[in-house]
């Protein structure tokens, strides 16, 4: 009997009683607000996807740009006046679920169309910023102690200058500079191992001098980016570029990666010194594999949290831009420009302000709640307490 019990112990190693999924469920069950956020998010996602199918194509089920001037500013749940409408102008649901705007367009279908815009702007912008953030932060954290040498800097200057000169139409000098660059790349790739340290001449020694570490460079770039007031910068760039939804996504993404970079760098700096990384290196794994298989999964938690909250703020930024008139160009509907059109009729048709406003509020709130819940879930200190 005693032996049996011992065998039993040996067979089952001392693992945690609950799997990670169960832990997750447990912590989320404790945090009801986060669960609510997740549910709303899933609902919003489904709405946006169905909205995309219902409102796009040549003859959509709910046409967001169908103008019915005789039916303008009808309140929500109003029945359409069937005599005055052509058959194809009658809304698909039979009633104006959320009323109509000043051109008689169905607000419900415009909201459906706008949901997809908000969703894609949030996800694509945050995707861009997270990619840049992980890339820059990873390099700064993992390769941070490496230094740029003088020749690297000269070479980059040559490259930039050459490209610039070609762009402003001075082809000869530009081509010369670019060819110097490519010659140097060839030279340094082929001759890397041939030169020993001792036979370096004076000029080569200067070329090989360390100047600035990778970490310093990247963190200074982050500092520079942080100096710009973000909404003002986004506004400037969006106003100068031609209006399109892709520009907005890219600009929001390009101006919000600094936080992620800092998180990732900090995580990488601490993880790089851990024993499991040393073990992986002792096994002879390459840098690439160590970064992506061993360090990244451990560093992803804070990124995930900040990305979730970043989506919320990207949606808010897009709505703000649309509100100021720099958003997605009409006739495409977004929640921001429904609201900004509706504000002129705020006393006659309050639903034009309140429906998109409350929709933005709920979606952003759900992302924020879910993000904070995620922070609690991924925080091991809090997990042990429960």
């Amino acid at each position, binding site marked *: 009997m005693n032996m049996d019990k011992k065998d039993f112990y040996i067979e089952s190693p001392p693992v945690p009683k609950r799997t990670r999924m169960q832990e997750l469920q447990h912590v989320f069950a404790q945090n009801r*607000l986060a669960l609510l956020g997740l549910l709303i998010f899933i609902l919003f996602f489904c709405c946006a996807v169905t909205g995309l199918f219902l409102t796009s194509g040549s003859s959509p089920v709910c046409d967001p740009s169908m103008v019915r001037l005789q039916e303008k500013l009808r309140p929500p749940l109003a029945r359409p006046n069937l005599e005055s409408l052509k058959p194809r102008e009658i809304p698909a649901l039979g009633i104006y679920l959320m009323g109509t705007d000043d051109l008689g367009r169905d607000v419900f279908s415009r909201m459906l169309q706008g949901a997809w815009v908000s969703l894609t702007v949030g996800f694509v912008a945050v995707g861009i910023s997270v990619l840049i953030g992980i890339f820059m932060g990873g390099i700064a954290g993992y390769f941070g102690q490496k230094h740029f040498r003088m020749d690297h800097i000269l070479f980059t200057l040559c490259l930039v200058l050459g490209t610039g000169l070609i762009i*402003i139409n001075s082809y000869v000098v530009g081509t010369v500079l670019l060819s110097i660059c490519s010659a140097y790349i060839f030279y340094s790739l082929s001759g890397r191992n041939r030169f020993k340290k001792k036979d370096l001449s004076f000029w080569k020694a200067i070329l090989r001098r360390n100047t600035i570490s990778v970490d310093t460079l990247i963190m*200074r770039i982050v*500092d*520079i980016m*942080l*100096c*710009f*007031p973000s*909404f*003002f*910068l986004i*506004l*400037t*760039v969006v*106003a*100068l*570029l*031609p209006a399109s939804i892709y520009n907005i996504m890219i600009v929001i993404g390009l101006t919000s990666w600094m936080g992620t970079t800092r998180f990732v760098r900090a995580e990488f700096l601490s993880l790089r010194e851990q024993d499991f990384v040393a073990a992986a290196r002792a096994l002879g794994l390459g840098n690439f594999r160590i970064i992506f298989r061993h360090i990244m999964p451990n560093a992803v938690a804070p990124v995930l949290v900040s990305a979730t909250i970043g989506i*919320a703020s990207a949606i*808010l930024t897009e*709505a*703000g831009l649309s*509100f*100021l008139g720099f958003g997605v160009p009409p006739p495409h509907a977004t929640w921001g420009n429904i*609201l*900004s059109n509706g*504000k002129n009729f*705020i*006393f006659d048709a*309050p639903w034009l*302000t*309140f429906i*998109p*406003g*409350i929709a*933005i*509020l709920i979606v*952003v*709130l759900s*992302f*924020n*709640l879910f993000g*904070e819940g995620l922070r609690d879930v991924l925080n091991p200190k809090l997990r042990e307490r429960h």
Partner: protein
Amino acid sequence: MLSFIGRSVVQKTVTLFFVSIVSFLIIHLAPGKPSQVDPLNPKFTPEVVERFRKEFHLDKPLYVQYVYFYQDLFTGKTISWKDNQSVLKKIWERFLNSLPLFVVGTLITWTLSFPIGIRSAIFRGGIYDRSTTFLSYLLISIPGFFFAYVLIIFVVTHFHVPVIGMETFGIGDAPAAYLFMDRIWHLLLPSVLSATGGIAVLSRYVRSQMLEVEGQEYIRTARAKGLPAEQVHYKHALRNALLPFVTMFGLILPGLIGGSVIIESIFSWPGMGRMAYEAILARDYPVILTVNFVSAVLVLAGTFISDLLYLVVDPRIRL
């Protein structure tokens, strides 16, 4: 200490230099020319455009334009392309308009969020804590422009006071007390709006700081000594929890100019944000670049001040 100051001044100057280059490039490499803002305007004949380009050095290469621009900026000679007024004077006027908004907003933020945060940390897990948590998420998530309209409707229909603009139009020769109240009413809504987000974030931060300190050993000791609860909370815990907030005084500096484009344009408040917005619409590059430069200076000065305050407040930190 002196070496730290010297090093960070040098570093920040270099950063500022690169910021000036980047912002200049962003503005000038973007498609579209300022001389093409209004192509349908019959006054914009090719000769006028040519004169305009010559006047503002737009026909020179970019680096020459850069030197010209910052030379003008530092000698205070920059003029707006739109109305030929001195940019620095314009910014100063608008800044004086934005200042009351900023001061009142910051005061509201800091006076409200500390009591809220401290109370919800002391009664953590209770109904008060949970409701303020939810409320602060709500305030973070609400789009400012939507909230502004809700508040405007509420105030206008319930209190019958005017709220748009800086003062009631044509109020001229009213009694002083009336003028004062008018100003207050106009100031109230925009500053409350600009404070909402700040209150939500700051009170959460106060709460988490307090919670962290309350978990420390010396708090347990203080409690074990039999000290009254108020003394433990407000003397032992709060003093240590306040440390990070001293440094945040430096970080509110950029708010002076970043301001709120959206709120100022809703309330047609003639402040910095609105001026920047109008400058963007008119492609008034000198104004845009100057606002950008000044705000970068403020950000750098803010971080510098907060580093210094850290040094002064926390003797453990040696930079």
